[in-house]
C-alpha cells in the first residue's frame, strides 16, 4: 500500500464548511460580468481570414422566387461570396421536430424576413451593404396575415390535438350556468440582450467547430452535420454563455449557426453571423399568440362541471417546435383547477409570419391564461368572490385527475393560498381598493390573485435525460461539464454547488466549463425549466461515482470501513483520521484509480402516449401564487403596478438568491408580455415593432415599487430530485397573470357587477382606455 503524501492529521471541525447546497452563492460569472471580462461569442478574437455575414431576406409575406441576382453584391470590394440554398451540400432542412423547414428559401418565401441568401465579406459593414445589393425577383402569392383568417380557413400546419377526459357535452348541456367566452393573447419577442450569433470555423477532415449561442448544442450539431452532409462526429458545437435565451435560442439558433457553417464550408474561411437587433426581431420566431375560447358549465357556487376549450395557436409559417408548445398549452389549460369532464382542442394555425417557437413556459402560460380568464369570467358573471371561486375549483382529494389523466399529487396551493392571503393582507386591501374605487371617478385600482401549477419534465419523455463529465485533478481541483447551457439563469453555479456538496469542497474548487458536444453527447436542450433537475442529477451521479472510488482508497489508507468515510470541509475523514482532498486525490492517482467519470440521469416515473394524449408527463408540479395591485387612469389608460406579493414553491432551494432572481425576472417578463410588449404587423405582413424603440420592454421604471417574493419554506420536493429542489425557470412568469387580472378588476369597477371586461393581452394603455370606454357604456 502506498502511504499518503502527508501524515494523517487530526481533523479540523467538520462543521466548519457547511454544505454547498441550500445556500446563496453568487452567479458563477458574477465577478466577470461586473468587470466586463466575461466572453460572449461576439467578444471572441476572430481567427485569421474570418468573414462576416449579413442576411438577404424576403420583402414579401408569401411569394414564389423567380430570380436571385448576386452580381452587384459580388462586385463590391471586400465581398467573398454570396451563399444561397444551392450551396447547401446536404438536405436544405433544419426542421426541429418535423422535417421540411428550409435553412435558406429555394423557390418559396413564406414571411417577410425569410432568409434567402447570406453575403460573406471582410467586415460586417461591407456584408450589410452588399446584402442590400442582392436583387430578389418574385411573384407574390396571397398571404394569411391574421390568426382569425387562419382559424376561419382551417389553415393548419398539423391536424388538431385533443385532450379528453369524461364526456363534457351532457354536463355542459345540463349545467345550471353555461358560459362561453374567449380572449386573445399576443406573442412576445424574446429580446435576449445578446442577439443570435454563431462563429463557424472549418478544420481538417472537413470538421466544423461552431461557437453557437444556442440552448441546444446537440441540435445545432445534428443539423449542421445534416446541412454539410457530415457525420455528427465531425461537428463540434460549443457555448460558454449566452446573453439571455428564454427559449429563443432553442431551435432558432440553428438558423444562424447553420448559415455560418454552410458559408464556412463554401468559403473555407471562418464565418461569423451576428444578427443586428432589427434583423433578429424580423427573422426569428417568438412566443405564440393564441385565441383562447371556452364553453364551461358551472353550478351556482361557480364550481366547474364540464369544460370544452379551444386553444388556437398562431404558429407562423412553419411547424418548428409548435407540437410541443401546443401540447404544453393543452396540458396547462387546467392550471390549478379540476375539470370533471373536459375536452381541450389545440389548433396549429399557419400564418405568413415568423415561425413561433419556444419562449419561457412553452405554451403553458397561454394555456393557464385560458383557465384564469375562464375562472374570472365565472366569478364576475355569477358575482362570486374571485379568490373563493378559485379555491372551490382547486384540485383536491377525489378531484385530482388532470385532462391528460395524470393524478395530481402533493398539491401545495391550498395551504400556500392561506399563507399568502395573510402575508399580503388580502382581505383588508380588497376592502380598501373597493373603498377607493367608490370615491374616485378617474383613478381606479384593481386587485387580483392568480395561482400557478406547472408540470415539470419535458412533455416528451425521451427528452428527459442528461449527461455530465466530472474530473478531479491531482491537486484536488474539479472540472465540471454537463449538457446544460448557461444563459444567465444560474445553472452553472447550481450544478457546481451540487458537485461541491458531494465532495464536501468549497464552491471555488469546482470549475464549470463551456458546454460542448465533444464532452457530453446527445443532450437535450436547456429548456422546460429542467436544466438543474437533469444536469444537476447527472453531475451528482458522476461526482458520487468518483467519490465512491476515492472513499475506497481512503478506507484502505485509514484502515477503516468505507461506510465511515466522510467528505467535508475540503477534507476526508474517518473517525479521528483525515486527509486533505488533494492529498487523497494524489493518493488515488498513485494507486491508478480513475478520478474522472461520466454521469447519466433519466427522469423516473414519466410516460406519455401521444396518440391518446394521456399518461404521466410530469414528475412533479411547481406551485406559485401572486397577489397584484394596480392603478389605472380611466381617462388615458395609463397604469402602474402598485404592489406585488409572491409566494413560490421551489422545493428545497439549491440557491435562494438565484431562485428569487428567476422569480422576479420571470414575473416582470410575464408582465411585459401581458401588458406592454405588443407585436404589430402591417397589412402586407411586415413586423413594424422590430427594435426596442417601438417594442416596449419593461424598464426599471415599470416594475412595482413594492415587490415581495418569498420562497415556500420547509418544502422539500416529495419526488427524489436533486437535493429535493424544484425547477424554477418558467413557472413564475405565469404569476404575471395576476397583473392582467388586476387590470381587468380595475376596469370592471367602472361597470355594474356581473360585467366582464373585454380586456385582452397585451393590455396596453390604448386597450385599457378602450375597455374603460366600454365599461362606462355597460
Amino acid at each position, binding site marked *: 500500500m502506498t502511504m499518503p503524501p502527508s501524515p494523517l492529521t487530526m481533523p479540523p471541525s467538520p462543521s466548519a464548511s457547511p454544505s454547498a447546497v441550500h445556500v446563496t452563492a453568487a452567479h458563477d460569472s458574477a465577478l466577470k460580468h461586473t468587470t466586463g471580462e466575461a466572453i460572449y461569442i461576439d467578444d471572441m478574437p476572430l481567427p485569421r481570414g474570418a468573414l462576416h455575414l449579413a442576411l438577404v431576406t424576403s420583402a414579401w409575406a408569401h411569394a414564389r422566387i423567380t430570380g436571385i441576382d448576386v452580381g452587384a453584391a459580388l462586385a463590391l470590394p471586400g465581398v467573398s461570396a454570396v451563399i444561397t440554398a444551392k450551396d447547401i451540400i446536404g438536405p436544405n432542412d433544419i426542421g426541429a421536430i418535423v422535417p421540411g423547414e428550409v435553412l435558406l428559401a429555394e423557390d418559396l418565401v413564406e414571411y417577410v424576413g425569410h432568409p434567402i441568401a447570406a453575403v460573406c465579406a471582410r467586415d460586417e459593414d461591407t456584408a450589410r451593404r452588399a446584402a442590400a445589393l442582392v436583387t430578389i425577383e418574385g411573384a407574390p402569392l396571397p398571404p394569411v396575415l391574421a390568426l382569425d383568417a387562419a382559424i376561419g380557413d382551417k389553415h393548419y400546419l398539423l391536424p388538431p390535438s385533443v385532450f379528453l377526459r369524461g364526456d363534457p357535452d351532457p354536463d355542459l348541456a345540463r349545467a345550471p350556468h353555461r358560459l362561453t367566452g374567449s380572449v386573445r393573447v399576443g406573442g412576445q419577442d424574446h429580446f435576449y440582450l445578446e442577439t443570435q450569433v454563431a462563429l463557424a470555423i472549418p478544420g481538417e477532415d472537413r470538421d466544423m467547430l461552431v461557437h453557437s449561442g444556442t440552448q441546444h448544442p446537440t441540435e445545432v450539431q445534428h443539423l449542421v452535420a445534416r446541412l454539410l452532409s457530415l457525420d455528427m462526429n465531425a461537428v463540434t458545437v460549443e457555448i460558454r454563455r449566452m446573453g439571455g435565451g428564454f427559449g429563443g435560442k432553442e431551435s432558432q439558433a440553428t438558423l444562424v449557426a447553420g448559415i455560418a457553417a454552410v458559408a464556412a464550408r463554401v468559403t473555407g474561411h471562418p464565418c461569423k453571423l451576428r444578427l443586428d437587433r432589427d434583423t433578429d426581431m424580423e427573422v426569428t420566431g417568438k412566443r405564440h399568440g393564441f385565441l383562447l375560447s371556452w364553453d364551461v358549465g358551472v353550478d351556482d357556487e361557480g364550481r366547474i362541471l364540464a369544460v370544452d376549450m379551444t386553444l388556437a395557436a398562431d404558429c407562423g409559417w412553419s411547424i418548428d417546435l409548435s407540437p410541443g408548445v401546443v401540447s404544453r398549452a393543452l396540458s396547462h389549460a387546467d392550471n390549478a383547477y379540476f375539470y370533471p369532464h373536459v375536452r381541450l382542442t389545440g389548433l396549429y394555425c399557419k400564418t405568413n409570419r415568423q415561425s413561433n417557437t419556444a419562449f419561457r413556459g412553452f405554451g403553458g402560460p397561454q394555456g393557464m391564461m385560458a383557465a384564469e380568464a375562464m375562472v374570472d369570467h365565472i366569478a364576475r358573471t355569477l358575482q362570486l368572490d374571485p379568490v373563493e371561486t378559485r379555491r372551490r375549483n382547486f384540485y383536491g382529494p377525489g378531484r385530482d385527475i388532470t385532462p391528460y389523466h395524470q393524478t395530481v399529487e402533493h398539491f401545495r396551493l391550498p395551504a400556500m393560498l392561506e399563507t399568502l392571503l395573510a402575508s399580503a393582507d388580502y382581505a383588508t386591501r380588497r376592502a380598501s381598493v373597493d373603498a377607493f374605487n367608490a370615491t374616485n371617478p378617474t383613478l381606479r385600482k384593481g386587485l387580483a390573485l392568480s395561482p400557478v401549477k406547472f408540470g415539470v419534465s419535458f412533455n416528451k419523455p425521451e427528452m428527459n435525460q442528461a449527461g455530465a463529465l466530472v474530473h478531479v485533478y491531482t491537486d484536488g481541483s474539479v472540472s465540471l461539464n454537463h449538457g446544460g447551457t448557461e444563459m*444567465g439563469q444560474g445553472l452553472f453555479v447550481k450544478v457546481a454547488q451540487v458537485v461541491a456538496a458531494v465532495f464536501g469542497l468549497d464552491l471555488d474548487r469546482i470549475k464549470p466549463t463551456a458546454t460542448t458536444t465533444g464532452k457530453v453527447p446527445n443532450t437535450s436542450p436547456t429548456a422546460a425549466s429542467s436544466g438543474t433537475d437533469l444536469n444537476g442529477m447527472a453531475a451528482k451521479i458522476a461526482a458520487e461515482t468518483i467519490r465512491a472510488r476515492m472513499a475506497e482508497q481512503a478506507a484502505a489508507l485509514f484502515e477503516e470501513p468505507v461506510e465511515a468515510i466522510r467528505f467535508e470541509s475540503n477534507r476526508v475523514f474517518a473517525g479521528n483520521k483525515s486527509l486533505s482532498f488533494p492529498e487523497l486525490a494524489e493518493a488515488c492517482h498513485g494507486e491508478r484509480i480513475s478520478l474522472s467519470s461520466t454521469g447519466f440521469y433519466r427522469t423516473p416515473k414519466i410516460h406519455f402516449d401521444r396518440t391518446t394524449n394521456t399518461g404521466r408527463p410530469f414528475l412533479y408540479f411547481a406551485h406559485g401564487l401572486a397577489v397584484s395591485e394596480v392603478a389605472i387612469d380611466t381617462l388615458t389608460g395609463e397604469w402602474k403596478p402598485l404592489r406585488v406579493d409572491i409566494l413560490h414553491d421551489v422545493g428545497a432551494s439549491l440557491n435562494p438568491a438565484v431562485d428569487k432572481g428567476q422569480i422576479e425576472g420571470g414575473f416582470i417578463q410575464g408582465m411585459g408580455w401581458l401588458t406592454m410588449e405588443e407585436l404589430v404587423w402591417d397589412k402586407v405582413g411586415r413586423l413594424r415593432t422590430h427594435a426596442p424603440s417601438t417594442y416596449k420592454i419593461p424598464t426599471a421604471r415599470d416594475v412595482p415599487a413594492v415587490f415581495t417574493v418569498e420562497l415556500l419554506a420547509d418544502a422539500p420536493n416529495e419526488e427524489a430530485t436533486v437535493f429535493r429542489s424544484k425547477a424554477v425557470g418558467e413557472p413564475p412568469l405565469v404569476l404575471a397573470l395576476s397583473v392582467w387580472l388586476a387590470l381587468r378588476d380595475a376596469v370592471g369597477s367602472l361597470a355594474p357587477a356581473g360585467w366582464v371586461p373585454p380586456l385582452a393581452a397585451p393590455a396596453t394603455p390604448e386597450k385599457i382606455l378602450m375597455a374603460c370606454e366600454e365599461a362606462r357604456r355597460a
Partner: protein
Amino acid sequence: MPTVSMTVNGKQVSGEVDARKLLVEFLRENLLLTGTHVGCDTSQCGACVVHVDGRSVKSCTMLAVMADGASVTTIEGMASGETMHPMQEAFREQHGLQCGFCTPGMVMSAVDLVAVNPDPSEAEIRHWLGGNICRCTGYHNIVEAVRDGAARMRALGKAAAE
C-alpha cells in the same frame, strides 16, 4: 481616414478610423475592450454605456471621431488593479445580474448617477435607469445594487476625506 486620439482607461490611444466608425466599434474592434456590449444597435438598451469625460454616454450613438481628445472610461477601467469599484462589488454581492450582458452598461450608468446624486432614492434610481434594459432580473436586485453601491461610494468618499 481621420485619426483619433483619446485617453481610454488612463492610457493614451490613437488610430485611423473610418469617419463613420462608432465609438463602441472603436473600443471593441480596435482596442479589444469587449466588456462594452452591443445590445440593440440603436441607442435604446444601454448595454454600451461608457463614460466620456466623466459622464455616461451610449457609445453606439457617438462616433469615434467625436471622442477625439476626450477621456473615455469603459467597464474595464473601473477596477483599480485587484480592487473592484464599489459599484461592481455591489452588483456582484446583491445578485444584480443574471446573463451579465447588460451589467457593464448598468454599472457605468449607476456610477454616473452617484456622481451627480450621491444618495439617490429608489425612485431616482429607477428613473435614472430608464435607458438601461435588463431582460433577466426584473430590476429588483439591480436597484438594490445601485443603492448599496452608492452607499459604498459615499463611505469611501468619506474615508478619503478624513
